[in-house]
């Protein structure tokens, strides 16, 4: 009797050992595949950076050489001299900050009204907001262009800033979902203390939805910074260009000088990547949050 139990135990022990080994091998394979995938994801960045430091003749060498030999730094000052990239950075920066900052406040205000204030027409208006998310921007593109032209905003940053700051149904919708989750008791307590809705919004609601504001803010930051179509349509003076538009313009003029182009491309990517690496946890979690709530 005793010996039999022992055998069974030994057997199952062997089995778990076997399974463990199997798992280890599959984990190693999984990691290898994931590392290969990660390499594919970052390789284009690394390759364009190393190429930006090569001479034209080295870029075309077959088979390709990975490291620059010698390092050619002149592509950077040359591309900065060729195009006002610094200017484009400033444009992109201040446009994005204004749009995201103002949009967060106006969207949170609207979201608060939709979530917590009962007034005539509130449901109908909310449905209207939701419905506009279905409209592709190409449908409103031509008329909006005409409106901008009528009020003299063509080839100015106002054409980008004002619509972005004042209208984003997606942000309103997401923030509303969060504000709905705040218990009414908190507000009622503030009302008892004699606070008006503006005070409640500012001192009760806004502090409570900080994580949501961060998520929505990151989302519109990425969308605004990388926006290509609106600047392409509205802006024609190079001094007013945003970073993506400047790079596209640059590409059009220097399409054959690959060293210069890779430098230009790197100049436009590096700051975004630095911000990304610093804030990646928040950016990725913000996107995850948006996905769940959407």
């Amino acid at each position, binding site marked *: 009797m005793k010996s039999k139990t022992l055998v069974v135990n030994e057997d199952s022990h062997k089995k778990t050992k076997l399974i463990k080994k199997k798992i280890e091998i599959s984990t190693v394979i999984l990691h290898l595949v994931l590392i290969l995938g990660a390499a594919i994801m970052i390789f284009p960045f690394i390759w364009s950076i190393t190429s930006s430091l090569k001479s034209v003749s080295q870029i075309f060498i077959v088979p390709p050489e990975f490291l620059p030999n010698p390092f050619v730094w002149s592509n950077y000052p040359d591309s900065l001299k060729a195009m006002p990239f610094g200017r484009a950075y400033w444009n992109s920066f201040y446009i994005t900050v204004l749009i995201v900052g103002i949009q967060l406040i106006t969207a949170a205000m609207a979201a*608060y009204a939709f979530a917590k204030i009962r007034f005539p027409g509130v449901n109908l208006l909310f449905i209207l907001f939701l419905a506009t998310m279905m409209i592709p921007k190409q*449908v409103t593109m031509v008329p909006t262009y005409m409106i901008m032209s009528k009020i003299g905003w063509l080839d100015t940053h106002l054409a980008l800033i004002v619509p972005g700051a004042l209208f984003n*149904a997606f942000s309103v919708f997401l923030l509303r979902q969060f504000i709905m989750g705040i218990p009414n008791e908190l507000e009622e307590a503030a009302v008892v203390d004699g606070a008006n809705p503006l005070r409640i919004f500012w001192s009760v609601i806004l502090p409570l939805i900080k994580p949501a504001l961060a998520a929505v803010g990151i989302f519109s930051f990425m969308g605004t910074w990388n926006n290509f179509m609106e600047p392409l349509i509205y802006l024609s003076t190079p001094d007013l260009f945003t970073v*993506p538009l400047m790079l596209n313009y640059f590409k059009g003029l220097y399409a054959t000088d690959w060293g210069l182009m890779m430098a230009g491309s790197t100049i436009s990517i590096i700051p975004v990547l630095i911000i990304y690496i610093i804030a990646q946890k928040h*950016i990725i979690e913000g996107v995850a949050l948006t996905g769940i709530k959407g």
Partner: protein
Amino acid sequence: MMKNKTLWGYFFLAPQLLGLVAFALIPLVFSIVLSFMDWDGFGTKSFIGLENFIGQFQSPVFWKSLRNTVLYTILYIPIGVSISLLLAFALNKVKGKELYRIFYFMPVVTSSVSVGVIWMWILNGDFGILNQLLGVFGIAGPQWLTNTSLVMISIVMLSVWWQVGFNMIIFLAGLQGISKSYYEAADIDGASGFQKFRHITLPMLSPTTFFVTIMAIISSFQVFDQAYVMTMGGPAKSSYTIVYHIYELAFVNFRMGESAAAAIILFTIIMIFTLIQFKVSKRWVHYEE
């Protein structure tokens, strides 16, 4: 008190409501009106009925742009969604997923133009790194961007690389949102790994899959940036998409009425697809009660 609440309600709503009216409703109405007009954007407008729509349906260029857009969507959706789903499964339980996430998400933060410039070079038929890599295996790589039958495939490749991290993150969040108690209950019932995957993971993840697929289809129908930056719609208009068509009609050819008509056709197509998706979704999307 009642009146007061109404005032406050509209006070908080005012800025976004103004934006909604000025940048969505008025342009939408204007766009519909414009689609029945003949207008070059400067001179006088004249009412021409359905002519713009008929003109689009008779235009080979419109059909070509539609065909390219549908081709892109058909290629991109299954490849893009399944790769991001597989990656999310792979990362879900693996150690070091935070580090992998950083790398896989990196292209997402990059602008379409930067991505386009880099890929123009990766895909260059003569000295692009992809063909040099294929050369190592003795394969003579094609002219990715100047071959009419390969150019949309090239744009799909770029798009998958560019966006796979985004969808992966959303899938990963969906996977981590599935309560462990389901798996524990299944373990007690003696379910196998595949059974758990088939009867817990897939149905519980279906709302996320639905969300990702719908968003991906909607954005696929609006593909523009990649084609504009890399190929300018070429060669021979074989990467010319609907949005490219709408853009060119309005801002290159100044045929505002036709552009509006094409945009409204695009809107209708997206709406029909979305509605069909919602209808079909009842069969496969599982929502928790």
